């Protein structure tokens, strides 16, 4: 037994030692286990990827808007992908579309959004020193980084990156005879995605564990900010759906490299019949969309969470329907798993299944609508301060509503027959999850920048950025509905071969111009971001007069987040403009006993239990 106690002391010693030791540059900023640094790593990687993903879309938009353009001037950038006559190679066009989708969905809006803000805000808002496992968290980022590097390398392959669109349906993605991108490019895509999935799972497991286990005193589940609820639901979605994508990817790898026939059957290509028999391409689609659909909620839920917080803070008003918001997010999360086949109405799936999925799909519109209404009612009789973050949050609500509504048409299997895989779909999801989630991410950056870097971002530049982007996004995606209603299929290099799709050349040109300008306007943001990190005005501890716990941490971020004891939480996070209170906000760590003038009757009751909350002892025997 004596050995035991010595051992115990020893580990404690080490622990204490670790906390006070100044870490070297590499451990502090590169292989860091601090959630704030990891969040910034995710953010900056996300921004880099967003620029790249946006650039790819500008190139293919040029092709679509100006199909006759001489693109020789792009030769220095794209090399042989521009042929002698100055035309973009159609295979490379497909590669561009594929990489734009992959990068935006996974690398920007999953890693860049969820990775940044889940990491940054979960410990800060629930009152924890760090994530449950800093090591796993670091691992999560570096798996993502490795995945990024591989995906990036694939852009420079001679045969080009993967070109079968981001949904990588086999057989196209399985046969390198079918498309040059299905060769090495696809191999790298699969490897990168496998690493990405590992990264997401490590992150997601960490987020959920942290929220469940590491909340500070008094932070019961009904006092969690909606951001945390959103991140938790997102992480659960990821934990349950990413493994399924991994299994689909693995089976695809087997088909590609080991000659199995899970997804391949009866194929004749390049003048010969392949030996594969008995596989089912539809099976892949089921597996893929079982992740693929939750994935869109993985993208949008964190954005909605951030928006809830920003809208409440800047309306100086409690978020309307806190519980309804939680229930609707829970509903969305649950339904997200049972609607996947609405992506497959016209794949030859059993029509009865189609009806079932149509029913479930349209149900999911209800909780989404509830969220929209709650945001709007939060604005009602508020006192709105238009910070750039607030403007982006309002923009998000508008996109979420406008883009979500067209989902009602696409979710209807009978109407989907005509609109499936047309630009109507492109317009729909770019508004509802693409732009909305992007706006959520940008809003989050503007709002939490003072906490991340201790500096303020310039708000005038923020306004300019907002207005160009907001108008630009509508200019790009609204006309796409028209093009879709006219039947234009997506992933087309050009439409001029068809009489039916010969109209709207001008509309496509407008979209391209708007897209380029919107893309360029992001330069304002990047300038503002970088400039403010170094030269921005020093922030105060709580610049937006916000209630949540992160605003009680010092301006200069420190390891362990709070210099002294972690604050105790007594109230919900939305006590804005409470009648009777002297100021228009009461942070979560202010006890009811300190605010007798504004307490509601039931809250006066709660004063009695405050002592008990303060008396909570944590089980400290579990070390890292």
């Amino acid at each position, binding site marked *: 037994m004596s050995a035991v106690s010595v051992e115990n002391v020893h580990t404690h010693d080490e622990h204490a030692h670790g906390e006070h030791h100044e870490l070297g540059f590499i451990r502090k900023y590169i292989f860091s286990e601090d959630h704030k640094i990891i969040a910034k790593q995710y953010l900056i990687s996300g921004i880099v990827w967003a620029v790249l993903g946006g650039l790819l879309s500008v190139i293919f938009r040029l092709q679509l808007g100006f199909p006759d353009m001489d693109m020789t001037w792009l030769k220095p950038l794209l090399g042989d992908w521009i042929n002698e006559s100055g035309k973009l190679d159609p295979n490379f066009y497909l590669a561009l579309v594929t990489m734009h989708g992959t990068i935006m969905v996974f690398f920007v809006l999953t890693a860049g959004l969820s990775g940044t803000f889940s990491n940054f805000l979960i410990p800060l808002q629930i009152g924890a020193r760090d994530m449950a496992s800093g090591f796993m968290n670091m691992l999560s980022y570096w798996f993502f980084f490795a995945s990024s590097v591989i995906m990036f390398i694939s852009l420079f392959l001679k045969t080009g990156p993967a*070109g079968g669109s981001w949904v990588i349906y086999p057989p196209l993605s399985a046969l390198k005879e079918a498309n040059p991108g299905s060769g090495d490019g696809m191999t790298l895509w699969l490897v990168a995605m496998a690493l990405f999935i590992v990264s997401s799972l490590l992150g997601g497991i960490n987020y959920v564990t942290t929220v469940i286990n590491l909340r500070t005193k008094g932070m019961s589940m009904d006092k969690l900010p909606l951001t945390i609820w959103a991140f938790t639901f997102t992480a659960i979605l990821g934990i349950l759906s990413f493994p399924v994508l991994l299994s689909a990817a693995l089976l695809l790898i087997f088909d590609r490299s080991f000659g199995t026939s899970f997804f391949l059957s*009866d194929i004749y290509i390049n003048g010969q019949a392949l030996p594969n028999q008995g596989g089912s391409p539809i099976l892949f689609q089921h597996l893929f969309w079982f992740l693929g659909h939750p994935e869109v909620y993985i993208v949008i839920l964190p954005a909605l969470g951030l928006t809830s917080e920003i809208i409440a803070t800047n309306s100086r008003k409690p978020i309307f329907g806190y519980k309804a918001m939680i229930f609707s997010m829970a509903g969305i999360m649950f339904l997200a798993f049972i609607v996947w086949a609405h992506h497959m109405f*016209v794949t030859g799936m059993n029509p009865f299944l189609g009806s079932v999925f149509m*029913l479930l799909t349209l149900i999911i*519109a*209800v909780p989404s609508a509830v969220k929209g209404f709650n945001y709007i009612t939060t604005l009602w009789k508020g006192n709105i*301060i238009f910070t750039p973050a607030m403007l982006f949050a*309002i923009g998000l609500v508008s996109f979420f509503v406008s883009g979500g509504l067209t989902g009602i048409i696409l979710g209807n299997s009978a109407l989907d027959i005509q609109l499936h895989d047309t630009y109507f779909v492109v317009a729909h999801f770019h508004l509802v999850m693409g732009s909305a989630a992007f706006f959520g991410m940008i809003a989050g950056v503007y709002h939490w920048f003072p906490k991340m870097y201790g500096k303020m971002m310039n708000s005038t530049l923020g306004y300019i950025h907002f207005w160009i982007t907001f108008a630009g996004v509508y200019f790009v995606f609204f006309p796409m509905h028209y093009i879709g209603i006219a039947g234009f299929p997506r992933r087309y290099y050009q439409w001029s071969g068809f009489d039916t799709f010969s109209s709207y050349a001008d509309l496509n040109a407008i979209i391209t111009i708007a897209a380029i300008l919107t893309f360029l306007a992001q330069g304002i943001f990047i300038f503002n971001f970088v400039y403010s990190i170094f030269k921005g005005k020093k922030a*105060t501890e709580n610049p937006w007069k916000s209630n949540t716990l992160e605003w009680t941490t010092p301006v200069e971020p420190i390891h362990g987040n709070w210099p002294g004891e972690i604050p105790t939480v007594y109230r919900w996070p939305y006590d804005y403009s409470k*009648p009777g209170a002297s100021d228009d906000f009461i942070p979560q760590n202010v006890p009811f006993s300190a605010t007798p003038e504004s307490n509601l009757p039931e809250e006066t009751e709660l004063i009695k239990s405050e002592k008990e909350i303060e008396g909570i002892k944590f089980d400290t025997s579990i070390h890292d």
Partner: protein
Amino acid sequence: MTIVIAILAIVFVILTFMVVSKTLSIIKGIKDTGSEENEGYLGKPNKYNDANGLALLIFWILSLAGVFWSYFSARENFLPESSSIHGRQTDFWFWVSMGVITTAFVLVNSVLFFFAYKYRYSKDRKVSFYTHNNNLEIIWTSVPAIVMAGLVFSGLRVWTKVTADAPQDAEVIEIMGKQFAWAVRYPGVDDNQLGGYNFKLMDDANGNPMGVDFADEKSFDDFSNASEMHIPKGKPVLLKIRARDVLHSVFIPHMRVKMDAVPGMTTKFWFVADKSTNDMRKELGKENFNYEIACTEICGRSHFGMKLLLVVDEPAEYEKWKRSQKTLLAENPKLLELVPANLKAKAQKYLPVEEAPVEESVADASLSNSSKVLK
């Protein structure tokens, strides 16, 4: 529309110029002092607060105007004139749904932007501490739910009808997607039944790209036409859809037909075209109108080029056209090798025999007839 582009381009250029100059001045401003009122922090709104609120409202009003103007100016190309019976039903429900969502779009966004404008910061406003209202939640849960239920119900009815089994007398036509063209096979005039196929028999070099199985005597009278697909007007047509290399998807925009073509699995879609190509030419006033078939599942380099012309004939014309077509065996006598010995005699009938010239000339005549009609 070109004028609009020009105006837009000018507007954007001016906007860019303004942004650049403004940015420059702000950078200067930051360097100078970083003046206090420039920043919206410390819970106080900055000097642009009213402007932003107003701008949101104006943006929305302008957008509404833009939405309606653009809708009416772009409308002529929406949902190309439907030529199938189920197509008109789906179109009807499409526009009903569009009506519903456009109403919701206008209402919800109007409220959003109006509130943003109306409740912009004012020193004297008394903010309402309004945390929740269960009745409101119930209302705005149930109203969308009821509307959804109505749409689901209507959608289900149409969907069930569209995906129901094809009528017995439907004209069965096989269409196969390959990189990057469509191949169509008709059941032939003698037995009106498609023969079997097997992907192992596919052979581009020897003229059997669809892998037709000539051990099956039903295949003998099957024929194919590479340049265009014909279907009869007013008669149910059942497409049996397959693919031989990667996924494709048959999309006939005017017929509201779309169904994936999957290697190793036959899918189907049936419909009734009730306007012939000529009817449509008259109706649209376009002399050279043609129905087209496109591919809507990404399939590789020339995905955008998988076009096949579709001709809808009057039933009599269609029959005539069918009889004028040469069978697969006649097109390519080498295929006789695939016919088992015991059936060779039967297959002989479909080969170009000595007196073929006569037959062929007849066929040519009727073919040119039908194409004259088309012209």
